[in-house]
């Protein structure tokens, strides 16, 4: 599992570059499009990891629906480019420090807690069938509850956007 090859590196670079564009770009529409490309890159990563169905969901839901929603709304809203980011120098410094802390925090937790499992290679692949069986047997209740969550979201969306707000 430690054998990182060219595919992994290029996939990571692809995703990382577009993630950087999402954050450090002045034009929100460009940011939304790079978010889309990053999602597609993540689909590739899931494919490399052998979780094929995650790739499907990643592309269908994230790239096919969520990213479309963002692009749509940004096109409808026409935000000004100059107002999107970086207020002051001090604030950026603060944000940078927070980011570095966060990154190293997560890494230390992962690496120094238990490195054994990161190196194992001979584990069986999780097949699509075991995954689905588990979803519909062990995770039955969360699965059904998630539909209720979506129902709630639908109701909320309809109410929020229906209400005519007086000018």
């Amino acid at each position, binding site marked *: 599992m430690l054998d990182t090859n060219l*595919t992994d590196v290029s996939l990571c670079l692809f995703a990382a570059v577009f993630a950087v564009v999402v954050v450090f770009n002045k034009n929100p529409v460009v940011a939304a499009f790079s978010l889309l490309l990053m999602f597609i890159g993540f689909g*590739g990563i899931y494919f490399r990891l052998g979780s094929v169905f995650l790739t499907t969901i990643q592309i269908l839901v994230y790239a096919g*629906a969520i990213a479309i929603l963002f692009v749509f709304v940004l096109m409808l809203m026409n935000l000004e480019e100059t107002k999107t980011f970086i207020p002051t120098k001090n604030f950026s410094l603060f944000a940078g420090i927070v980011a570095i802390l966060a990154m190293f925090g997560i890494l230390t937790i992962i690496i120094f807690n238990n490195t054994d499992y990161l190196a194992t290679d001979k584990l069986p692949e999780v097949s699509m069938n075991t995954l689905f069986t588990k979803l*519909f047997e062990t995770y039955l209740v969360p699965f059904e509850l998630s*539909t209720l969550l*979506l129902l709630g979201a*639908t109701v909320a*969306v309809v109410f929020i956007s229906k209400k005519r707000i007086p000018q």
Partner: protein
Amino acid sequence: MSLFPFVVFSVISLSIGLVLILISNILGTKPKTKRLHDIYESGMDPVGSATKRYDIKFYLTAILFLLFDVEIVFLFPWALSYQSSSIKPLMLAEFVFFMFVLIVGYLFVLLSKSLDWEE
């Protein structure tokens, strides 16, 4: 499993478009008048910006699509695993409940007139 075939395929497809545009760029005549570069608006001078705000229905459609799409995508694994499942009655019950919630959501959206385009 390898992503290699996919990469080859997309690079070739991408290069088809690129090459065609390049060729037409080289062969095509260059425009002679300035007026050609104006916004196309039936010969009038355009008024206002193109990215003004459009009808709110468009984004409502996109949001509702997102919500229903997620629900329907989660039916895919169900449909694929039903045949090989050992507990078919339970699976059916799950499905019926799922569809019930989905249809209730749909009816709510329908009755709230969010889907009406004519006003």
